[in-house]
């Protein structure tokens, strides 16, 4: 089963003379353990595609399915619940909650979902161990290095056992060496969990870590090219 299916998705902003087409009849399928790099210049529609795939925006037309769940016509409330359950995000600026420790940042997801059982605590501790962050579990983000913060963000994205992980420009603030380490980590973590991921990047060097590379220009998805 595909983790993500975008079928003829179109997204426009404004109307009439002021209409802007951000995504134009985009069709994309991502397998359930596939990692796709979405590459394109600024303003090409990467962000819009990621937002629609993650249930942050609704498409103007077309169909969106995540993990077999059709989210095309979800209301705001349904999309909020969907994001809580089915999607993991890694943001460009990491965006950890600054007053929470690394462990508590992982526990934000179950906290939002109202879960406080022992299983989620154990999962957080297991993820921290896998990400090599056991020592840093009780440190605040301000005391972590850039790489450690990225790893915490990856752990947070994995906490709710998502069907799809969406990663937004994960290496834009990192040097090449650290960027490659982070990409490798993302690929390892996602692959080991048989989870699908879409990684947005404008850096072709980072795109090679993905199983497949998709280019987007002016809202159009181009035929998949070898990664």
């Amino acid at each position: 089963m595909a983790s993500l299916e975008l079928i003829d998705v179109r997204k426009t902003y404004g109307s009439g003379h002021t209409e802007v087409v951000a995504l134009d009849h985009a069709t994309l399928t991502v397998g359930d353990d596939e990692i796709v790099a979405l590459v394109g210049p600024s303003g090409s529609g990467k962000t819009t595609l990621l937002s629609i795939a993650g249930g942050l925006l609704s498409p103007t037309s077309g169909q969106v399915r995540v993990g077999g769940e059709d989210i095309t016509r979800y209301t705001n409330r349904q999309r909020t619940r969907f994001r809580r359950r089915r999607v993991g995000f890694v943001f460009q600026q990491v965006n950890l909650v600054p007053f929470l420790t690394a462990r508590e940042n992982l526990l934000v997801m179950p906290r939002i979902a109202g879960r406080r059982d022992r299983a989620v605590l154990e999962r957080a501790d297991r993820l921290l161990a896998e990400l090599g962050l056991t020592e840093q579990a009780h440190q605040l983000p301000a005391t972590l290095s850039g790489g450690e913060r990225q790893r915490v963000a990856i752990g947070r994205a994995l906490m709710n056992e998502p069907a799809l992980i969406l990663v937004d420009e994960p290496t834009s603030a990192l040097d090449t060496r650290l960027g490659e380490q982070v990409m490798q980590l993302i690929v390892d973590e996602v692959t080991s969990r048989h989870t699908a991921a879409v990684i947005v990047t404008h850096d072709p060097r980072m795109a090679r870590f993905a199983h497949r590379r998709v280019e987007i220009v002016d809202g159009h998805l181009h035929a998949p090219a070898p990664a």
Partner: protein
Amino acid sequence: MSLALIELRRRPGRFAAMLAALGFLVVLLLLLGGLLDGLYRGSTGALRAQDADLLVLASQSRDSLLRSVVGPADRRRVAAVPGVRTVRGLGVALVGVTVPGRDEVADGAVLGYEGGVRGVPLPPRPGEAWVDRRLRADGVREGRRLLLGRGRVPVRVRGFVDDTSYLLQGGIWVRLGTWRRVLRQNRPDAALGPRTVQGLAVRVEPGVDPGRVAAAIRRAAGGRLEALTVAAAVDALPGVQAQNSTFRGIISVTLGIAGLVVGLFFALVTLERTVLYGVLKALGASSAQLAVGVATQAVAATLVAFLAGGLVSLGLVALTPADIPVELRADRAVVTFGGLVVAALVGSALSLRRVVRIEPASVIGGA
């Protein structure tokens, strides 16, 4: 613990300005409330203590016990009104009280009574008095002799009673004969006959409407008497209503300012937190969850400010001279806290619209 409370605990400095402003307002509110209570209770205790349904005064007195005179014939008419259960005479004289060994003359309200006063035992023997504890600050002690007025009528303090002051003067409760003697020796022009009093405290029969009895009393006395409920008589005391409405107005405005402080603070904080709220929304937090977080912080900050402001207020009241009638009371504190919580919730609700409008999609793509 919720995210909101964790932030409050770990980043107290972020809330310091609001806590300081709120704490100051708490001190202001508690002291204003304390002054209002002190003034009100100090002015009205003697009347509030009356175990009566009605207070009957001469119509010409314009609802003032001090100006009223009720003769024995009118007292008999009142007692004969259907529905009247008991009638007790009452009189008051405001005098200077000399405490032997003290240079200062204290202010006292000599209250003649025939019983039926809550918290005050039955009238003492002639030449004795139950004295309001307020006068302890002037050196009055149990068993000591006091000299009442320029006529220096001696009374011995039999014991102390609480909350029985009249017009901010400590109550000195004596039998009617002693009160008439005080009046005669200090204000010969106002001396009253042996069975004349200034007011009548009336209890009505169980199940009888005091309003109907009051109307019957007015009719029976041919308009010479006015019958008021005790609450109306309290309100008719000079300055009480003006005092209450003035203080309540100031307290309401101060509560409004507290709400404004909280509202402005959280409006600014919400602006700062736009990205954080966007991230939390993207992760699946609802606007309602975030709004509850803001409200939780507002209430928790109010609690902290209230505790700190309460402690400061207690310290200030302890340093306040005894002649300033300020009373910090638990019921006032509870009402003040409740008012502050409401103000804080209303203030924090001003941020609600902004929280709802934050788009989770805004954190994707370079936020």
